[in-house]
């Protein structure tokens, strides 16, 4: 049974195909309004993530399908009691596809290994979150019209930021990608990501601590937030969280064609004043995420012989 745990489970050709489907949905949503009639998606969220869950639910409803969920109170008791394996074996009997979020790394693989229906990883701890990366890729494609020869600046927490690692992996597969890694010393991109992702692909990258000086050469600026839960020590968090704040003033130095992305939610790393800048694309990412989830749900249901 085909599941998607990591964005790299999908080939470049499959990502092209998903983008093509998403573009077609955007052009003619009515055509897809009944594709998943009488099909059911289960959203199994073992930790709360309202925006991701809502995106999956909206995606399934727009395809004409239905959604059933574990309530969050139950999911916390499930996290203590019933195993992931038992939960998905049970839920496989009720629905056609599962979107699962879990605080532990590797939980989605356990689910996929035990389910008799496709599983989409909606985030497994700090490990993978493939539909976020699909949202990022559709956004890049819609705004830039191509994936080749793009220079992407990643800014903020590059150490723990799984969306950064995942997008690095996805973009490393396109020719001519260049990365500018902007972070405090303490939050640099881990060496295993450089060794396993960037180096084998022959990616050119530079590392810096300076955001403003890096902006002039970027096609894309990908901002991230520094997550409090990643720090053992509150002092370190407070010291690092305000290190990079993108303001309207700083955007004056950025190229006209540079787009700003962010996986959201943000804390304060992008000023609200930047939202009105036409280069700000982070709310478009949210919408694009729904379209890519629609495309992925359809693809996996088709492959499973359920559509």
């Amino acid at each position, binding site marked *: 049974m085909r599941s998607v745990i990591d964005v790299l489970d999908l080939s470049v050709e499959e990502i092209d195909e998903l983008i093509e489907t998403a573009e077609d949905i955007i052009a003619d949503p009515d055509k897809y309004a009944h594709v998943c009639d009488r099909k059911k998606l289960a959203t199994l969220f073992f930790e709360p993530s309202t925006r991701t869950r809502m995106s999956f639910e909206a995606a399934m409803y727009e395809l004409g399908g239905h959604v059933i969920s574990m309530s969050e109170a139950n999911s916390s008791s499930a996290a203590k009691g019933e195993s992931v394996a038992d939960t998905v074996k049970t839920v496989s009997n009720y629905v056609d596809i599962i979107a699962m979020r879990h605080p*532990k790394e590797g939980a989605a693989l*356990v689910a996929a290994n035990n389910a008799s229906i496709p599983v989409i990883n909606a985030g497994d701890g700090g490990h993978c979150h493939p539909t976020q990366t699909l949202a990022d890729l559709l956004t890049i494609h819609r705004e830039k019209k191509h994936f080749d020869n793009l220079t992407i600046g990643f800014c903020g927490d590059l150490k723990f930021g799984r969306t950064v690692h995942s997008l690095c992996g996805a973009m490393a597969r396109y020719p001519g990608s260049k990365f500018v890694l902007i972070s405090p010393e303490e939050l640099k991109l881990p060496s*295993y990501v450089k060794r396993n992702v960037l180096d084998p692909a022959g990616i050119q990258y530079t590392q810096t601590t300076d955001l403003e000086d890096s902006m002039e050469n970027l096609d894309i600026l990908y901002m991230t937030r520094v997550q409090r839960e990643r720090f053992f020590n509150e002092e370190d968090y407070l010291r690092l969280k305000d290190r990079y704040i993108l303001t309207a003033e700083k955007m004056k130095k950025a190229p006209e064609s540079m787009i700003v992305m962010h996986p959201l939610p943000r804390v304060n790393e992008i000023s609200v004043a930047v939202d009105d800048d036409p280069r700000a694309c982070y709310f478009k990412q949210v919408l694009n995420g729904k379209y890519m989830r629609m495309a992925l749900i359809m693809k996996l249901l088709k492959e499973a012989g359920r559509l």
Partner: protein
Amino acid sequence: MNIDSIRNGIVIDHISAGKGMKLVSLLELDRDDVSVAIIKNVHSQKMGKKDIIKIDADIPVNLDVIGYVDPDATVNVIKDGVLVEKKTIERPKILTGVIRCKNPRCITTTEQELKHVFCLRDDGYRCMYCETKAE
């Protein structure tokens, strides 16, 4: 037990000096019902020093464990006092139920009876679930 002559059993030879004890522990040879000899720091022309393990019993030995600890070790199977087979040792691509993932955020810490599985990558063994490197 005469450590020089085993009737029926296994001799694990050419173990890098110092790794013998780890192998005994991971192979779970530290048990009451089997005669096991661990010979440490034996002089070897090829290796300088080596460890040897002699198991005087016809028990199954997990070759993946040997391949994980020391792929250069050799395994000789003895039957009726005669060497009947030399097993080839390789680093296993997948290592199941031998070592444990140390990442506290890994699903293996909470999921009931989930086997710890490691995959051989360019830079060593990594947990199949969370990609954390084995120590």
